[in-house]
């Protein structure tokens, strides 16, 4: 009887016990913080249109070295890509030309834009498509997600 009990206990212990085939070691932990609301600079893996490649080229050669200095969200280069994809090349270029002028504002009078959670000024393409119905007006006190 004792032997049977002993075998049951040993067998149970062996089946439930944690296996130790993997050598213990230091865990790889990533402590870097993600910046909320700021999109990835490169998206050529998912889209390979000439415009996206141009934008990625700009990001790689200029923007990354110069720093993320655009005061707006989305950034001017993303705005251009988004504007062209949502409308057409001509209209998208006109929208970009206007955005570029507003970005170059000599007086930095940006007080009428709401703030995005990323800390940048929220200026979506929807508000510049010449359609009243697409315009989303936010109060400047609002923090946009």
């Amino acid at each position, binding site marked *: 009887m004792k032997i049977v009990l002993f075998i049951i206990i040993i067998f149970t212990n062996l089946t439930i016990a944690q296996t130790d085939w993997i050598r213990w070691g230091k865990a790889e932990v990533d402590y870097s913080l993600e910046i909320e609301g700021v999109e990835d600079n490169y998206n050529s893996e998912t889209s390979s249109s000439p415009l996206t490649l141009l934008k990625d080229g700009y990001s790689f050669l200029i923007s990354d070295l110069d720093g993320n200095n655009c005061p707006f969200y989305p950034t001017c280069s993303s705005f251009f890509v988004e504007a062209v994809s949502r409308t057409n090349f001509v*209209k998208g*270029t*006109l*929208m*970009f*030309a*206007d*955005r*570029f*002028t*507003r970005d*170059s*504002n*000599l*007086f*930095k*009078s940006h007080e*009428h834009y709401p703030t995005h959670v990323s800390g940048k000024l929220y200026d979506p393409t929807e*508000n*510049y*498509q*010449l359609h*009243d119905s697409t*315009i989303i*007006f936010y*109060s400047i006190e609002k923090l946009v997600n």
Partner: protein
Amino acid sequence: MIANVLKLTTYLFILFTLIGINNLFSQELDNLFNSSNRTAFGNYLFCEGDYLRAIDEFKSVLSSEWNDSLQFKIATSYYRMGQFDKSIYEFQKIEADIYLNKLAKLESIRSFYQIGDYNILRDQINVYFITMGESQKLSKLYNYSLLLDSSLLPEKSVYLSHFNGEERNRISEYYDWKIKPPYKNPTKAAIMSALVPGLGKIYANEVGDGITAFLLTGLFTYLAVDKFQNNHTASGWLYASIAAFFYSGNIYGSATAVQNYNAGIKFNFNNKVKFYLNERDQFIPIPKYLCD
């Protein structure tokens, strides 16, 4: 032999004691989670503003016995959490209690106001008039809601007949605004920018952008002219292209700037009307609870 009997008796005693204790505790737990305790705990959570957990408690009580008061509290909890779709759904379940049914209809109307679905809000008010009788205060909400969407307004005299005193003067102003809003013209802004770069932006109250557009277009036009005059054709075309880029972008941008300006005017007007309505609880009495 005697020793074996004693041993067996001891085992049986331990076994029955364990079973007895288990039953005792399970009975106590059953008592603890009975309907009245859960209702009391739900009420406590509701008063503390812990609406999500209060809903859980109330729903578990309702699964065994229906109670319109608890159902009203569930709907109110969703309303107070800002989940207006769910609050409307829950308010619609109240039917038996006549008083609560009337309150639930009013609260549904308030929820439709919060969602901004003014067409359904007016339909609901009409249904309320048919089932519960005319209400002067709800007539006011009905007429105010006409200012908040693109509905056609009735004749001014008819519209103002629902109001009197100081409120009549205020709503008269709102009516005039709605009939003739102080919007600016996007085409006019585009033409202005075509004549003088940046002028359309200034017209849209974006003075800094207007001056910047004027300087950028002017600078590159000057450079282009200068290069062409000195027979530097290639750089002349380059500067001319940049000038055309800013010039055309500014014409387009002036029109969109005016559209955004108009959207802001409309937004501020709607906010003013809503602020007025919210100060008066949308002309619907707020249900009072013991803990309020």
